[in-house]
């Protein structure tokens, strides 16, 4: 269900070695997997209903992660119940995203859906950075980011017009 988070583009750590080159195709493959996930969701939603398709993602994901967590031993850090409440609301936002994904892909295609998601991410992250919402560090939004946003919107318009 995750998508690339473009707001994290900062802190690049230069560590040039062979491992880096080997990992890169793996990361690209992981990105391709996200599109496959979206590609599976659309037709599934048409067949069984959008909410059921969404449940398949979260249900299977929960089961796998729970098993992974059980076998990965004790976890570091505070218990979830000790955290500020608002940090737990991320879980409510995920389903909104997945439902929209199942709704949209049969009508506008996967590439266009991904670009639209990207423009929403960049647009919002510009706002989050600018105002420092949700406890993130406040950053000045410079001209380059606005240009990037404009380019993504232009790409969206191009694809929408076919």
């Amino acid at each position, binding site marked *: 269900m995750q*998508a690339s988070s473009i707001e*994290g*583009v*900062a*802190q*690049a750590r230069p560590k040039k070695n062979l491992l880096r080159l080997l990992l890169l195709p793996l990361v*690209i493959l*992981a*990105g*391709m*997997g*996200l*599109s496959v*996930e979206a*590609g*599976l969701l659309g*037709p599934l939603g048409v*067949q069984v*209903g959008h*909410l*059921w398709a*969404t449940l398949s993602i*979260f249900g*299977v*994901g*929960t089961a796998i*992660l729970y098993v992974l*967590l059980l076998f*990965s031993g004790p*976890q*570091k*850090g505070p218990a979830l119940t000790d*955290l500020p409440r608002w940090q*737990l609301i*991320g*879980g409510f*936002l995920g*389903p909104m995203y997945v439902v*929209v*994904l199942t*709704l*949209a892909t049969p*009508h*506008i*295609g*996967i590439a266009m859906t991904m670009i*639209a998601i990207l423009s*929403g*991410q960049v*647009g*919002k*992250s510009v706002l989050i950075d600018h105002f420092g919402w949700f406890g*993130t560090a406040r950053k000045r939004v*410079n001209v380059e*980011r606005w240009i*990037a946003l404009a*380019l993504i919107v232009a*790409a969206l318009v*191009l*694809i929408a017009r076919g």
Partner: protein
Amino acid sequence: MNLILLLVLVIAAGAVLSVQAAINGRLGQTVGVLRSSLLTFSVGALTTALLIFFFEPAQAVSLLDVPKWQLTGALFGVVYMIVMVGAVPVVGTAVATVAVIVGQLGMGMLIDNFGWLGNPAIELSGSRIVAMALLALALVFMYRSNTRTD
């Protein structure tokens, strides 16, 4: 459904995802990626189940009736998460983000073009290729803006 309305909805979903990433990024730092992901997925599953109970109209076909490969979507999400946890410290966030988007859009175009996985086929046109070029340029600008503000 109206195309423009749908687009606005998807852009809003991207914004929502961005908020979620910001919240979960912090959560992951304090409690670990596995626990923060499990929290996201289990709360997501519970919320969706509640919505189904009260709002979903009866469907002729259930999840148990469709071919099993159609249910494997979540695996890709989990594999993505594991790859990112392993790769980001080595290749850096910037390179990883660009690589993911390249993979995402490349694969998206392929699925659209050939109509894989039961999707309607949308042919790869000239304007789609130009759109890709614009996106590549956008990524360059994103990258430059982030290295400058550091």
